[in-house]
């Protein structure tokens, strides 16, 4: 990528932010020994935006999300959630985040109701509001009928919903969802997608969603960020990215090949 293109990517990214940014990422890096999982990643997401986090497997999506949520400390760079630094003001920042990791963090022996209540306590939902918050989360995720069954008995789709319910129970400003539809059947995918769509439409939540299903991004997101080998290679509103009738798949393929050629050329030059 040339410097000019890099500048264009960043300016178009910043242009889409509406209102004060709730997710601010500056110069984020993560190194595991010699391996750079994420390199110099910067972006910001405004309140109420729904952003699709795209990229092939191993591009650094999960690592980035883990750094955003404070699970893994960054090697370098700054993450601010709702104005609070994830490192130095961890408690405040974490209170503002709802996080659904790649595999939902469930206790199989608990019931959805008991589990979501436990998470509500962890996330500091005030005692007086806790019961309402739990009921609301269970209702929104369609878990009313199964809320007293054991989680281990539930289907994968329902477990994913329980994972979503725990992410939204404290009404977080930011929702970070790591591949929320992976491993589900087409009907379950539609249900989860509709659920995320509802959450997006209800406002209040800023959603960062990782996936490699492009149709999912087209269905839910307003903006895409494309990662490759730990670097940001595209950051555009969906309407701009697909302007001129190009499908997201074509855009994706074009950017990726350009990057491949670019890095090959850079490698050749260095050699």
């Amino acid at each position, binding site marked *: 990528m040339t410097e000019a293109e890099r500048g264009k990517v960043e300016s178009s990214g910043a242009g889409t932010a509406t209102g004060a940014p709730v997710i601010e990422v500056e110069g984020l890096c993560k190194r*595991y020994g010699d391996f750079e999982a994420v390199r110099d990643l910067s972006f910001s997401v405004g309140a109420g935006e729904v952003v699709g986090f795209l990229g092939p497997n191993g591009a650094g999506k999960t690592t980035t999300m*883990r750094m955003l*949520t*404070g*699970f*893994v*400390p960054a090697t370098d760079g700054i993450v601010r959630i709702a104005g609070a630094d994830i490192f130095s003001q*961890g*408690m*405040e920042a*974490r*209170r503002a*985040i709802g*996080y659904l*990791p790649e*595999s*939902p*963090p*469930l*206790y*199989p*022996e*608990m019931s959805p109701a*008991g589990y979501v209540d*436990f*998470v509500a*306590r*962890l*996330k*500091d939902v005030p005692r007086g509001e806790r019961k309402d918050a739990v009921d609301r989360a269970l209702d929104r995720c369609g878990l009313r009928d199964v809320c007293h069954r054991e989680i281990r008995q539930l289907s994968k789709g329902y477990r994913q919903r329980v994972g979503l319910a*725990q992410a939204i129970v404290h009404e977080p400003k930011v929702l970070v969802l790591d591949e929320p539809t992976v491993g589900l059947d087409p009907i379950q995918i539609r249900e989860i997608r509709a659920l995320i769509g509802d959450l997006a439409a209800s406002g209040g939540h800023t959603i960062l969603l990782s996936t490699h299903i492009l149709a999912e991004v087209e269905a839910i997101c307003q903006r895409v960020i494309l990662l490759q080998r730990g670097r940001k290679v595209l950051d555009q509103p969906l309407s701009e990215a697909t302007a001129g009738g190009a499908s997201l798949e074509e855009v994706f393929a074009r950017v990726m090949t350009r990057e491949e050629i670019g890095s090959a050329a850079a490698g050749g030059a260095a050699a």
Partner: protein
Amino acid sequence: MKHVSTIASRELRSLFISPVAYVVLTLWSVIAGTFFLASLIGFQEQLIQLQQYQMLDRIQAMNLNDDLIEPFIGSMWVILLFLLPAITMGLISSEKANGTEELLLTSPISIWEIVFGKFLAGIGFVAVMTGIVAFFPAILFMYGEPEVGRTLSGLLALLLVSATYVSVGVFASSVTRNQLIAFVLTFVLLLIIGMMLPFLVEITMAGGGLGRESAVAETVRWMSTGSHVERMLKGLIDTADLVYFAVASGVFLLLSKTVIESARWR
């Protein structure tokens, strides 16, 4: 620290619906019953023998605390070494294996709260175990007159040593995501600090230049739980022993916290 009870009560509830808890409690009860019965029969036979030989002064010296309750609680303490690791093995390792560690570490709670919560849940469980043991000496109060203070002191010793062992279990459970490894590690650590340290002193220092009475030997002996438990079983509640249990638990909990914290940086 308000999340400690949240973590602890969830853990306790999960423990008490797991089959492991019931296997352990059943074994514990059966073994306690058997040992108690055996000690009771032994006590009775000794009494009959002494009566046959007309050794009145020895009969006078016999009492329920010295000859029944103390050895009974002492042997239950040994059984604890084998059963407790089964309870503590999953405390933190299962959070890692389940992926729920990611939930805990991205929630607005401190690692200390997680560690204390787990410790407290373990203490809740060993309190039930101590309660089961307490049931048997309680029977004696219906038929004889054991000393209340000494009996309670013995039970307190069992509870405190169990709590200390729970902290060892929390630590072993924090270093791995594999429950079996956590079990074995806890068992080995408990054997070492519970029983083997005094022997290690004898073996390594008796012939060497340091000698049995050196400061090092004394320190290693102090580190073993054995002597502290034995004194409390005799009814001697010494602040020094209480401090020992507090320090030992504190050290292992601090280690657990450090392990959990440093694992994130890898």
